């Protein structure tokens, strides 16, 4: 069902309809016009003389507009329809729809065109569990529009529907009584406008927007600004172009960001600011579109936690997990206003800040965000060390609606012992310690170079060194020659083999002497499928090749692991991971899913897509970009870029032109040998 639906979107406003362009949402169905996490239209059904239409074709013109060609049902293929209907729809402050009816007959025709319209004003979080609404619905009709509204106490949301051509409005829609001449056409422009923020505030934004309201011109400009890739493998071209277009679609402008954009987590259900997803995607895209990182940093800094708030799992210095604007957030039935329950975005915020400066040389941002970066670093020691053992761990304080698992593998069974037992909370997963180490090391560089605080830099370096030393003892499993997945609440080592180990390489917390053993696990048959590295190793009790975090392969996970292997000198292994994931991308026409099955490559011959509601997913979209950086061995070194390509043989020649950075723009070339 879901893949036969048509979606278009701009930021957090999106329309999901069937192939006719109709919306017939039930309380549990996810079609409709959504904006700011609220459904603003749940019924939008077109009929001509009381009959539904059939689809001839759909043009997905762009991610923000589509065109539906429709004809009446003649009952048989032997009778030509003498009429056709075109609906061209574009998102923007709701949506606009140009409706055209063409009469192909030799004589005039009289028609009744009707659009049924209605709205349940469901919160995105209510859609799937069909919660009963607590407020009241109302409508207002006048000669030029139909207004649908919802009121719960002072909470108010409205949808206004209007047409340029004359029509009759009633509480359930619009009716056009038409007479169309022979070989003539009739058309109208329909506008569906949503009100939320404009109703409760009139806001002016600072700075200059990075996107013009003309979405088509904007996409063209975006594509022109990004580096050009030339290569011998056509499927890689497709993947690269797909990633850039999808990344454009995933841009989201929080209201505080002055019209500038950051990557939202996924389309369409996760078009919101997510600390972890926005940071990791910004990191992946840094060599291609560095401005996403700047907006991510500024927006997350602005929303940094200030107080202890159990309901929101907020602490001073903590970086946002998720921000939502719907009714459940408004009435505190969900904690997303904003919610802070994650244990990784805060150290990763510092990692991104440092990496951003290394690429762009933009020291202004590093200086401006010094208080937030210091607060984030302080959070690691003051609020994240729940056990007092010097490690970051997590345990939610909001036990009703908070998130139980506050690392990226956020499903209930993702962290387990070999025998399948689940550890208790607080849980200290290993990758969190790596992020904390990296944040401290990078924080030290920032303190020394930009904040003119060498004493603080020394202190951070000392803490990081100590953390690395302790970690390599406390998390090491001598029998398995691997790092434990986590420390249990009682301090026991959670001993399942998992991809989390790969993130440790990226963070640099692994002792050089242990790196080889880690890579051997990651590239061994229990974890590496030939397409990529599984989230959990085959042979562990909870392993399941189609288990979300217990066996499936996540492209984003692999992109960071490959980067980590590179950093430890395992260039050929990194290239093998990159080659596997990019081969898989070709099967998905360049759009990598969030995850795919962890079956052995020789067993299925093609990557088995994991069924998810959300595509494209931001960090899957970013994965090919980071893999390109990794294969080319791109590293900012003072004021220049260093290049050390190790490419899989199949890739042949690869050129990346106009890579932006502190060096201006440069071209790099590589040739496959590995």
């Amino acid at each position: 069902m879901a893949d036969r639906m048509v979606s278009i979107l701009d930021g957090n406003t999106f329309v999901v309809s069937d192939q006719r362009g109709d919306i017939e949402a039930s309380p549990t169905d996810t079609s409709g016009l959504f904006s700011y996490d609220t459904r603003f239209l749940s019924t939008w059904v077109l009929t001509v003389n009381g009959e539904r239409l059939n689809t001839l074709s759909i043009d997905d013109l762009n991610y923000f507009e589509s065109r539906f060609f429709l004809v009446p049902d003649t009952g048989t293929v032997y009778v030509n329809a003498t009429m056709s209907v075109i609906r061209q729809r574009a998102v923007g402050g709701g949506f606009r729809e140009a409706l055209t009816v063409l009469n192909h007959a030799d004589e005039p025709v009289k028609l009744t065109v009707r659009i049924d319209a209605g709205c349940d004003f469901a919160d995105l979080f209510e859609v799937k569990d069909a919660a009963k609404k607590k407020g009241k619905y109302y409508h207002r009709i006048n000669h030029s529009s139909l207004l649908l509204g919802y009121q719960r106490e002072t909470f108010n949301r409205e949808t206004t529907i209007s047409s340029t051509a004359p029509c009759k409005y009633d509480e359930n829609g619009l009716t056009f009584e038409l007479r169309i001449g022979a070989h003539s056409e009739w058309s109208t422009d329909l506008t569906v406008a949503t009100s939320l923020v404009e109703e409760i505030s009139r806001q002016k934004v600072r700075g200059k927007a990075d996107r013009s309201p003309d979405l088509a011109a904007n996409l063209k400009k975006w594509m022109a600004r990004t580096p050009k890739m030339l290569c011998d493998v056509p499927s890689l071209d497709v993947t690269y172009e797909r990633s850039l277009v999808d990344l454009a679609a995933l841009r989201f402008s929080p209201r505080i960001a002055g019209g500038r954009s950051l990557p939202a987590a996924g389309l369409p259900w996760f078009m919101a600011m997510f600390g972890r997803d926005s940071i990791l995607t910004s990191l992946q895209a840094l060599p291609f579109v560095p401005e996403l990182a700047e907006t991510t940093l500024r927006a997350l800094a602005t929303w940094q936690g200030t107080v202890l708030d159990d309901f929101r799992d907020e602490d001073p210095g903590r970086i946002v997990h998720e921000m939502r604007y719907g009714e459940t957030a408004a009435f505190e039935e969900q904690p997303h206003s904003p919610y802070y329950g994650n244990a990784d975005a805060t150290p990763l915020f510092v990692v991104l800040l440092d990496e951003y400066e290394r690429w762009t040389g933009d020291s202004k941002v590093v200086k401006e965000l010094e208080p937030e970066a210091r607060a984030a670093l302080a959070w690691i020691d003051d609020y994240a060390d729940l056990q007092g053992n010097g490690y970051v761990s997590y345990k939610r304080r909001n036990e009703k609606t908070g998130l139980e698992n506050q690392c990226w593998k956020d499903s209930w069974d993702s962290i387990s012992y070999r025998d399948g037992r689940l550890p208790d909370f607080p849980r200290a997963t290993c990758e969190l310690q790596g992020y904390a180490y990296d944040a401290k090391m990078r924080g030290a560089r920032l303190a020394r170079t930009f904040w003119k605080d060498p004493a603080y830099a020394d202190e951070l370096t000392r803490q990081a060194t100590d953390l690395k030393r302790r970690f390599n003892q406390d998390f090491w499993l001598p029998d398995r020659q691997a790092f434990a997945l986590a420390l249990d609440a009682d301090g026991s080592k959670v001993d399942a083999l998992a991809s989390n180990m790969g993130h440790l390489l990226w963070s640099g917390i692994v002792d050089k002497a242990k790196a080889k053993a880690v890579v051997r696990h990651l590239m061994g048959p229990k974890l590496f499928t030939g397409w990529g590295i599984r989230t959990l190793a085959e042979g562990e009790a909870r392993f399941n090749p189609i288990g979300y975090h217990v066996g499936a392969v996540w492209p984003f996970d692999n992109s960071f692991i490959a980067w980590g292997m590179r950093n430890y000198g395992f260039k050929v292994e990194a290239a093998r991971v990159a080659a596997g994931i990019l081969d898989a991308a070709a099967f998905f026409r360049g759009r990598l899913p969030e995850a795919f099955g962890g079956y052995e490559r020789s067993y299925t011959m093609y990557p088995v897509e994991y069924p998810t509601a959300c595509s494209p997913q931001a960090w899957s979209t970013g994965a090919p970009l980071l893999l390109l950086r990794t294969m080319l061995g791109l590293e900012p070194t003072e004021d220049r870029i260093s290049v050390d390509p190790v490419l899989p043989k199949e890739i042949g020649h690869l050129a990346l032109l106009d890579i932006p950075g502190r060096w201006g723009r440069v071209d790099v070339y590589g040739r496959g040998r590995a």
Partner: protein
Amino acid sequence: MDAVEQFFTEVKGREYEPTLRRISGTVRYELTNGNGKGSPSGNGADTWMISIDKGDLSVAHRTGKADTIVRTDRKLFERIVTGRAAAMSSMLRGLVFIEGDPELAVLSSRLFATTGMMEVRNG
């Protein structure tokens, strides 16, 4: 002195707030008595101004030009500055009205936490 006056007095006493040093601008708080939807500027509202100049703070109990206007019921504002209500959910419910620059609105709300009147939020 009620919690609202205490809040502005505390802010006035602080003079400098390092976490606001990247921003400059003036916020006008229009605190109304009644339904929370606010009344037109200066019309019967208790109006306070906080000016931020790269972290330097000044407070005035009067009306004037501002980059951001925060309009809400006085009782609700009291609950917000003492941590018994949250600003963002209140805004989404239509109980806090924000006009002007939203970034300044969010950043200036850091002052709620730094006055020491709210170490925890329970609402």
